[in-house]
């Protein structure tokens, strides 16, 4: 009946066939390449467009070229070298996580050129599974997750298909009806669902590393964010970026929006064009501050930036574990924020902040580059002469000037050498960078210590989840001046001109447009909901780390999970999940045909009478046997069996509708037949 063939020589033998080089049937090969491509897709979306386009083009080209016959190995080697070189050039030879991922993607793209046997196909799928993995290292957004999950399902479905091919290598003899795509996905879904309890148990309970074994490579291709420097005119890009940068949930009162200044890098040095941070100041201990009022308790959830500092509501009172406060009350973390992090913070508005200014710092806060902005300096010196020793009067005067004569606009001309002069006396329009920069130059010119502070202002309240979210477009720059007796005082010249820019940051502007979900969530309630969902995902999945894991059982009264308790819990849950897996898998598959299902149930009902139908027994023979043993039951069973075998073997009735009606009637009849110890029971 069955013809025999060698198990592994099959590929080689089929290689004689010109249609399929080396064996793998074209359909399986197509499925393999499709699965590989779907694994590559989310990764490509994260790479810079030029590299992604190159890899896509090469991948598709190679797939087509090598479809019929393998490319010569010399050409393949050339392609590998060429593509690797091109990717390195496009990535600017900066070796980092991004370049690594780009090279990985390039290797995938080349793989189809040598995928002809079962083994090749499997190794392609195996390596392709690194695609979603690498994607998650770069991005954890919803679309990456959805695409990654789809890719994994496809990859597993292809593995299943390859295993079927392995157990039946001869395509001509594949008498078994191939699974339809739907059934295939269903069976993969079943495998994943069965494995899910264990996966989740391990996910929540597997001990996490509290510090990494090896360093996290910096993102070679940096994404925009608050930078350490500010050059007036360059923040526009940031102001148009609607990506969420942090979410804050307050315990107790939240400050009014007008007071939500998320304080970031403090810029001390000005070279005439650019404001920069002073590195050596970072090492000094935090300046003393006295809080006014109780302040705010809040939890900050910071999206990854790959820098080592993050903003906090001013002023943070103390650094949370894992970070420290710099002199300027900036938060500086021990390692780059490459993943979502969460911080418990307490901030308060200062009553006095660094009331004694050291001479070195004072000199720094007054220094201006030589030979820049003569008109501004002249104005400042005039003000100083008029105001005498009253620094506050100078500040008031500058604010009055800005409020009276200036306009807020994002469309600013390119400024020349004397940028502050041009802004103050010629254009009189600009945005936060221009305002803060000019203001600080003016103050320093007048002998008032001043510095530029960058960060975010305002926030958008999401009523669905009761939290605030701050986006990149809320980026802002303002000034701090040092006043005798009070220390550093925040002055926001932009707010004087365009208060709506600060106070109702997002309320008037179209919400959404954050990432790919923007289009879908254009309506505010929908946006609120989707961002809330996103936050939930962040909360439950992305931000789960060693310390959250240890605090996991706090609601149940366990304060802190030690490592050995955690291991114990892990083993316990993993074994329970394992047992559940076995139970789930060993349940038999449900028979699809309701008639056969009812027929088998009927057979089982006779078990109590010792007259169960044997697997080999035809319907009528069994009914005959029963009729001999139990004449009272025999007749109706015989009728049912006849009906059943007619239905099953005599083909279907005239129309679909009639057939279904007949089927339902038969199922009802089969279910109604209940043999009792004496006679049939209804």
């Amino acid at each position, binding site marked *: 009946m069955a013809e025999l063939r060698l198990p592994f020589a099959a590929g080689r033998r089929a290689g004689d066939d010109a249609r399929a080089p080396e064996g793998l049937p074209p359909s399986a090969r197509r499925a393999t390449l499709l699965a590989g491509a779907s694994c590559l897709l989310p990764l490509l979306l994260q790479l810079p467009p030029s590299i992604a386009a190159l890899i896509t083009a090469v991948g598709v080209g190679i797939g087509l070229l090598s479809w019929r016959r393998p490319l010569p190995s010399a050409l393949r080697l050339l392609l590998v070298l060429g593509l690797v070189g091109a990717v390195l050039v496009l990535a600017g030879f900066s070796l980092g996580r991004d370049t690594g991922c780009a090279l990985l993607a390039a290797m995938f793209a080349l793989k189809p050129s040598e995928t002809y046997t079962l083994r090749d196909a*499997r190794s392609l799928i*195996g390596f392709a599974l690194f695609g979603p993995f690498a994607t998650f290292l770069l991005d954890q957004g919803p679309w990456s997750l959805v695409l990654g999950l789809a890719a994994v399902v496809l990859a597993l479905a292809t593995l299943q298909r390859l295993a079927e091919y392995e*157990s039946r290598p001869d395509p001509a003899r594949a008498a078994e009806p191939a699974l339809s795509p739907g059934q295939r996905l269903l069976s993969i879904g079943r495998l994943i669902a069965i*494995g899910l309890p*264990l996966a989740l148990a391990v996910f929540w309970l597997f001990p996490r590393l509290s510090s990494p074994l090896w360093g996290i490579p910096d993102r070679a291709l940096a994404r925009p964010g608050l930078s350490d420097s500010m050059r007036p005119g360059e923040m526009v890009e940031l102001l148009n970026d609607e990506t969420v940068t942090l979410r804050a949930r307050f315990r107790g009162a939240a400050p009014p929006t007008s007071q939500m200044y998320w304080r970031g890098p403090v810029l001390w040095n000005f070279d005439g064009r650019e404001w920069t941070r002073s590195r050596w100041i970072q090492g000094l201990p935090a300046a003393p501050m006295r809080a006014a009022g109780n302040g705010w308790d809040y939890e900050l959830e910071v999206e990854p930036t790959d820098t080592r500092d993050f903003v906090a509501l001013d002023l943070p009172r103390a650094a949370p574990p894992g970070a420290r406060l710099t002199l300027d009350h900036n938060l500086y973390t021990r390692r780059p924020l490459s993943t979502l992090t969460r911080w418990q913070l307490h901030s308060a508005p200062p009553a006095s902040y660094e009331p004694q200014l050291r001479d070195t710092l004072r000199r720094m806060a007054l220094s201006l580059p030589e030979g820049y902005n003569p008109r501004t300096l002249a104005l400042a010196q005039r003000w100083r002469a008029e105001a005498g020793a009253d620094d506050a009067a100078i500040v008031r005067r500058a604010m009055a000037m800005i409020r009276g004569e200036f306009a807020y606009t994002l469309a600013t001309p390119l400024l020349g050498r004397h940028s502050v002069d041009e802004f103050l006396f010629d254009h009189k329009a600009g945005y936060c960078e221009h305002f803060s920069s000019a203001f600080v130059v003016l103050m320093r010119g007048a002998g008032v210590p001043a510095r530029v502070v960058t960060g975010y202002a305002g926030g958008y309240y999401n009523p669905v989840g009761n939290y605030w979210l701050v986006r990149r477009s809320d980026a802002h720059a303002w000034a701090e001046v040092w006043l005798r007796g009070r220390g550093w005082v925040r002055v926001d010249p932009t707010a004087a001109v365009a208060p709506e820019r600060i106070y109702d940051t997002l309320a008037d502007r179209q919400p959404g447009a954050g990432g790919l979900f923007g289009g879908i969530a254009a309506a505010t309630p929908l946006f609120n909901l989707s961002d809330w969902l996103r936050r939930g995902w962040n909360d439950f999945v992305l931000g789960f780390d060693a310390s959250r894991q240890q605090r996991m059982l706090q609601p149940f009264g366990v304060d802190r999970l030690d490592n050995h308790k955690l291991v114990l819990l892990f083993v316990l849950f993993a074994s329970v999940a394992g047992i559940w897996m076995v139970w789930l898998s060993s349940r038999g598959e449900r028979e699809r045909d309701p008639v056969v299902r009812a027929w088998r149930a009927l057979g089982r009902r006779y078990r109590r009478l010792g007259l169960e139908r044997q697997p080999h027994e035809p319907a009528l023979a069994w009914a005959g046997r029963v009729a001999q043993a139990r004449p009272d039951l025999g007749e109706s069973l015989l009728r049912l069996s006849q009906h059943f075998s007619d239905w099953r073997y005599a083909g279907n009735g005239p129309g679909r509708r009639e057939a279904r009606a007949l089927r339902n009637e038969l199922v009802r009849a089969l279910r109604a037949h209940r043999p009792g110890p004496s006679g049939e029971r209804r």
Partner: protein
Amino acid sequence: MAQAGTTTATARGRLSEWRRRLLALTRPRRREALPARFDRRRIYVLPTGFGAFYGALLATMLLGALNYNNNPALLLALLLAGAGLASLIAAQLQLSGLSIVAIDAEPVPAGQPMTVRVHARAKPDRARRGLRVDDDGALGTGVASLDLDQGAGEAALRLTTERRGWLELPRLRVWTTRPLGLARAWALVWPQAPLLVYPTPEPHGPPLPTGGGDQAVTRLHPAGDDVHHLRAYRPGDARRTIAWKHSARRDILLVREYEQPLGGDVELEWQHLNGLDQEARISRLARWVDEAERDGCRYRLSLPHQPALGPGSGHAHRHACLRALALMPHG
């Protein structure tokens, strides 16, 4: 290059040595009566090469994800691991509950491949498709497929035969790599079901000894000349052989049978083949049995220390003779 080749060969030798030891530990360790049911004590699940690769891949992913505290990557790796584990269980369940109920084969002359049918049964509660049956290369040259349909199925495994007599089956392995190809679930069955191998007929030899004398034996032959007798009609008889007159008289269809005189009974005597050694005698007698059968002669086989078989002809007689020859002690 050559050195590398040698190293590989040594490694392979060591591997097969380990394999042999491993197999010696697996159940069953002695022959068993059929039906043999596979339960968890005798089903083994071991990763395939690809499964090991997949495992290494997942380990790398897990380590990377834990190091970067990247939870989506960790979930991905765990999801893949969970599906992989579920596939191991699914592979095991493909075999669990399966019974090998019988093994049979048509006897073949030694030296020819024998097709051994392995009959399997299981509860029809789950699809068992694409199982494979082999004997790990002990006698078989290939792998047979086993699909269970409605709880029953059979595989036809081709084994090589070398010598006449009882063929003791090697341990047969039933295995599958489905559903994902990550692991091979396998179980061994070592049935106590000896299969008969006939002796190899001599390829070229003297003609069949002519039938010895007095009794003229006739063979029924539809095209013969002499009417032998009438018998009842059997489906398939030619219409022209029906005896219409007799049939009309007896009210049932009768058919004329003819016979043709042939030679007498063929005597196949062990004693007459003095000049040959044991195996040569057996193989010549086997050839003669086949020739006599082909020519339609009645023949009698006389072997030492046992009563003569026959005279007779037909399938059963041929089988009896060849079986007796096959079971002659090896010389």
